[in-house]
């Protein structure tokens, strides 16, 4: 196991290098750079472009140099923990991201907990009561969340919450709390705003989770060993939790890898509609305005979290399913 971990850690290095190249390419794929799109935006609205400052920035960040040099400059900075400078926000990238991470974590974790709380009981129940009316109606409920385009749901909920509960539209708190330190009032305001994004983002994921949990569990429940155990007189609940449920969770564990970056990036579109102060809208704004360092470094950060997440999920998978562990010793 120890060798396995070391091996995986070493493999991470080329992976990250490859990712950084892909990120850099993707960001530079659309024509132009931040400055051309900034100038276009200014000129289109009739404003004079501050060409001198733009010239300084272009020089400072080496936009006049060949791409591979720009790439090395950026990666060099990343290695020192310097994620570059956001032109859009006029601030170092570390700070822009840092400011938003806390609220993003709050939203994401609440959403994940919400998803699990809803999906688990429903998934297990409908797998064990296959084709019953309760199964059908619960799955239907779960699917409705998945089937509704969530940006539309978000807007409708925002509007209704404002009309009926007087909750301010968008954001995660009432505007006047924005520049204040944390207090009970602020926390209450956050809670009052949080439920809409949690429901909207959560519902989409819930359905998918119910579906897969149910499908996997059904697969397991039909296996021989379950029949054997049942025949031996194991109590149904104990049986369910001891073997099939654990097996049914395998695919979910392999998903932890993608869960981690999701937690950080949040649901972009819903966050944009709801104007949440999370990293999602920031990423979209950065990509739209081709704010290279902000977009690139943030994506790298996400990539790093994914790689770590995948590592964790592989380890967990190995720990949970001895057959995979066995593979390490049986390589032909």
């Amino acid at each position, binding site marked *: 196991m120890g060798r396995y971990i070391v091996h995986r850690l070493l493999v991470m290095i080329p992976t990250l290098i490859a990712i950084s190249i892909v990120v850099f390419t993707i960001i530079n794929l659309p*024509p132009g750079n931040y400055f051309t799109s900034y100038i276009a*935006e200014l000129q289109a*609205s009739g404003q004079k472009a501050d060409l*001198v400052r733009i*010239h300084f920035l272009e020089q400072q960040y080496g936009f006049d140099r060949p791409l591979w040099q720009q790439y090395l400059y950026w990666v060099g900075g990343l290695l020192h923990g310097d994620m570059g400078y956001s032109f859009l926000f*006029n601030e170092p990238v570390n700070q822009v991201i840092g400011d938003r991470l806390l609220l993003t974590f709050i939203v994401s974790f609440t959403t994940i907990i919400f998803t699990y709380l809803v999906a688990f009981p429903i998934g297990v129940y409908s797998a064990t009561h296959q084709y019953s009316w309760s199964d059908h109606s619960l799955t239907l409920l779960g699917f409705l969340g998945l089937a509704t385009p969530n940006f539309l749901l978000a807007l409708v909920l925002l509007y209704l919450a404002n009309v009926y509960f007087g909750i301010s539209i968008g954001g995660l708190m009432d*505007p006047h709390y*924005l520049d204040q330190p944390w207090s009970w009032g602020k926390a209450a305001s956050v809670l009052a705003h949080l439920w809409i994004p949690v429901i909207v983002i959560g519902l989409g994921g819930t359905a998918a989770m119910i579906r897969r949990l149910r499908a996997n569990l059904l697969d397991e429940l039909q296996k021989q060993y379950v029949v054997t155990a049942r025949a031996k007189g194991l109590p149904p609940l104990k049986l369910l939790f001891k073997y099939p449920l654990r097996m049914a969770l395998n695919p979910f564990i392999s998903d932890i890898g993608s869960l981690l970056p999701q937690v950080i990036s949040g649901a972009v579109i819903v966050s944009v*509609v709801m*104007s949440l102060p999370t990293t999602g809208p920031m990423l979209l704004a950065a990509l739209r305005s081709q704010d290279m360092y902000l977009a690139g470094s943030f994506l790298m950060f996400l990539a790093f979290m994914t790689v770590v997440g995948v590592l964790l999920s592989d380890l967990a998978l190995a720990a949970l399913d001895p057959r995979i562990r066995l593979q390490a010793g049986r390589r032909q």
Partner: protein
Amino acid sequence: MSSKSLLLLENSEKRRNGSRLSPGRHRGKCAHFRLFPEFLPSRVAYSAGFAARRRLGQALRLRPRAIPGVALLLFLALFGAAQARLVETPYFAAATASGRLPAIGERVPQQPAVARSGTPGVPGGTLHMLMASPHDTRMMVVYGYARLVAYTPWLELVPDILASVDVADGRVFTLHLRKGMKWSDGHPFTAEDFRYWFKDVAQNPKLSPAGLPIELLPRGEVPRFEVLDETTVRYSWTQPNPLFLPSLAGPDPLYIYAPAHYLKQFHKKYADKTHLATLIKQYRVRNWAALHNKMDGSYRNNNPDLPSLEPWILKTPLPAPLIVFERNPYYYRIDEAGHQLPYIDRVELTLADSRIIPAKTGAGESDLQARYLNFDNYTFLKRGEERNRYHVRLWRTGPGSEWALYPNLNTEDPVWRGLMRDLRFRRALSLAVDRHEINQVIYFGLGIEGQNTLLPQSPLYRPEYRSAWAQYDLDDANRLLDLIGLKRGSGGIRQLPDGRPAEIIVEDNGETSEQSDVLELIRDSWRQLGIRLFAKPSQLTLFRHRVFSGAAVMSLDKGIENGLATAEMPPWELAPTTQQQLEWPKWGQYFETKGKAGEPPDLPSAIRLKNLYQQWLAATGHDQHIAIWREMLKIWADEVYSIGTVAGIPQPIVVSDRLRNVPEKGIYNWDPGAYFGIYKPDRFWFASPVPSAARAASAAAHR
């Protein structure tokens, strides 16, 4: 009110003589203009000077000394009265009492500007507005509209930060500053700030690699700059520079001054070397010039430490989701009762996605909102009026056309280029646009139909400019196309000379669905010409790139920016002067880069327009300017370089019921106008000083 009657006299005289945009002219159509006589003393001064100039053809004087005796006395009396009764601002009461801030008498200039528009108000309150981009802090510079010279709601240019301006022959400009005027940090605002900018910023090759801004270089000539005394500077050229004053009054003005006392610490010439080196390291910039540039930026308005002259100054380090502006304790304007302006203590900008700003506004989350609201939000906003205690007003917008089609005369495709350059083709396309339908379907008939040219509010307006080739007449249009020799092929679609079907791809920047709606409406009527239109929404940068490079055959975008122009404003939009002009980007680029890039114009009419523009730049007299404008407008109307649709589209303005002095009717325009700027938001005030409990709590928490 005798000054007012004097003003009326002036106006009636002007009306007889011709042409200037003035209140009298608009009494019928836009009575609102009468409501806000702004800046009376200076107006009189300017008008008087104007009359004098016309008589003598010599000097334009924008100063109180030129006022006829009676008015001067009245002015001094008013001024003296105001000065005697300066009232301390409640917001600063504690600070002045404890000595942290000098008393009001020492904060306002010895000759403050006295504002008189609307009703006198009460200081206090916080103005909430919604913005979408972290760059929107600059909107506070636009709305604040403290300029050396500024436009009034009548679009007259009057001194604002300046006490007065003397202009001789249109080429020697003497600027008189207000004595005792101070930056927002209390440091005096003097001639040194002008000298510093001109000598140490604008002419420093490190700080301004491109040299002086184009507005200071008529035909490339560098002005002679003199400091006459502590509060007087002079710029002189050997030939007229009509761009100089208008550029100072723009929404994103040409700053010819800078807070020298603050910026010198970043300037290599003045700063202590070791200190500068630490600063460069601290801010992680490459050199001192980049540092200076980062800290400077009056228009960007993103450095809370940068001293300012605006009514509200930035308090929040950026970026932040809530951006707070606080009143400038050293602001130069007072009201007639001796209160220092602005009335409103604080301005809070909340950042939200532009798409939910209409919803938030409708929920009463903004006290004054126009940005990010569209005409089609009006009905929705109207519904929330009572519940959320605001009113929606409709102001007019200023562009020459809300949307205009631009045939790209520089398109790469030789066949299309030939057709686009064919006058008959452009006219035929224009005749086949059903402007009335567009107006009814999208704008409830509230727009002004016609070509992409000046609006009726402009003194230069003539109905024939707007109606030229703008009536819906398919027969004439078809006849013109037949004349060109475009034969109808299969399915009634005409064929290009090389046999391809006449299918025009019209590109737009894809930012609103209104664009595709307009194109959809035009598509059907063009179909009857035998021309097929395909709409191609794109993305801003890409869109512009394709038009500039000639890849796009035709594009849809806003009409000319300034539909309200007076003869004193440069007619650059009518001539190939910049790449931004989508009808001839390459010709414009040629002019802009002085021939280094682009192509020289090769249509006689376009060349004529370019020459006329250059003549306008060299012209001195008002009459010459008018004559040139008229000829250019005439050519522009005949040639149909751009196909206008509907103009003067109402802009919804949401105003809190407690907010006073926001005009019922107005013009919402970028330049001239600065959006709310010309209506002087420093005079806006809140009727009841204590807003809702929550806001009061938040205000308390801030103090």
